[in-house]
């Protein structure tokens, strides 16, 4: 059957526009653009309590994101959470005694891991474990601690 040339052209444009829209959604709207997988290395850290940390949560240094949480597991012997982070290969100069803490963005925001570089000469490499960790603050614990100290103060 004969096909009208303009029809073919417009159908082509339609398909290109649709695929372009998908591309925009992937690159501009979602996190694909800011995520360089593959070019990263993994370090792990053990926490007593990770609070609301999730896979894909941010890993930051001085507020700059350097990587993401790639996996969260539970150590059945030591009863601790084991968090794996994949950190961008660009940032490979962290000393071995770097500390990891779980913080909350704002009062009700998401939780993320903040790294604080130490002063050792050796550097973190793929598969290293961060020893210095600080667990997430759990609001209920904080409040009960505060109340407990208040009541013990007034009782004295």
């Amino acid at each position, binding site marked *: 059957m004969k096909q009208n040339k303009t029809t073919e052209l*417009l159908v082509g444009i339609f398909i290109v526009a649709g695929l372009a*829209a998908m591309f925009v959604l992937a690159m501009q709207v979602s996190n694909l653009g800011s995520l360089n997988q593959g070019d990263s290395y993994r370090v792990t850290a053990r926490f007593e309590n990770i609070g609301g940390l999730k896979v894909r949560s941010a890993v930051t240094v001085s507020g700059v994101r350097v990587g993401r949480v790639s996996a969260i597991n539970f150590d059945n012997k030591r009863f601790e959470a084991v968090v794996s982070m994949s950190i961008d290969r660009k940032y490979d100069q962290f000393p071995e005694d770097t500390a990891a803490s779980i913080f909350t963005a704002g009062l009700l925001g998401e939780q993320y891991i903040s790294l604080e570089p130490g002063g050792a000469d050796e550097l973190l490499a793929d598969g290293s474990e961060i020893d210095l960790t600080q667990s997430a603050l759990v609001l209920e614990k904080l409040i009960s601690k505060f109340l407990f100290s208040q009541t013990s103060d007034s009782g004295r």
Partner: protein
Amino acid sequence: MLDWIRKLGRGGLRLFGKLGRGGLFLMATLGGIPAVLRRPGLLVAQLWSVGVLSLALITLSGLFVGMVLGLQGYNTLVDFGAEESLGVAVALAVVRELGPVVTALLFAGRAGSAMTAEIGLMKATEQLSGMEMMAVNPIHRVIAPRYLAGILSMPLLAAIFSAVAVYGGFFVGVGLLGVDDGAYWSQMQAKVDLYEDVWNGVIKSLVFGLVVTWIAVFEGYDTVPTSEGVAGATTRTVVHSAFAILTLDFVLTAMMFGDY
């Protein structure tokens, strides 16, 4: 009482009969898809009437839905000092829900009803029978290209809708209301996940495309070949499609975002 039960039984039988015919019809249609792929000309003609002709409606709707979301979202978020999150709010609403659902509803009204009416009229005027007698299988020649075009068009249209809506929200939020340009995009990119949100949205629109087009071509093919029959079938296409889209949307959402 007995009469009422009998009526219920008759309705049930009719429903199952229709479902069975629909299922067999779907099988036959899928069997015709290889034949369509050998003749891309047929597919192009249908992509034209299903996709290209829906484009203006989808783009305009996307633009305005995005703009309304920008306006509403801003007014709600600004009370919490969180207007920076406008981009996230618009993008998540559009990519996860409104893009696939609104596109599918508009598609059912625009392309689905037209498909039903066209096929129904072809049946009423014996064109389908005529093809059969010319040794041309109407399911391969008429139905399958339309079905394939519907399945291909829906995700493309939904993606266009979503992308345009995000820019519509951008236009209102950043352009008119003064949200920070960088915050709009960076917050969005930080929170919208490629797999969880964008990809699941595409899957949703693909499923809607399969179902809506199936309803449209089947209602056309199964129509009573009179003018009332075609009118009724066209109405049923829109009503059943809307119902199927909203029901499936809940089911798919529960499956995709529900398990944690």
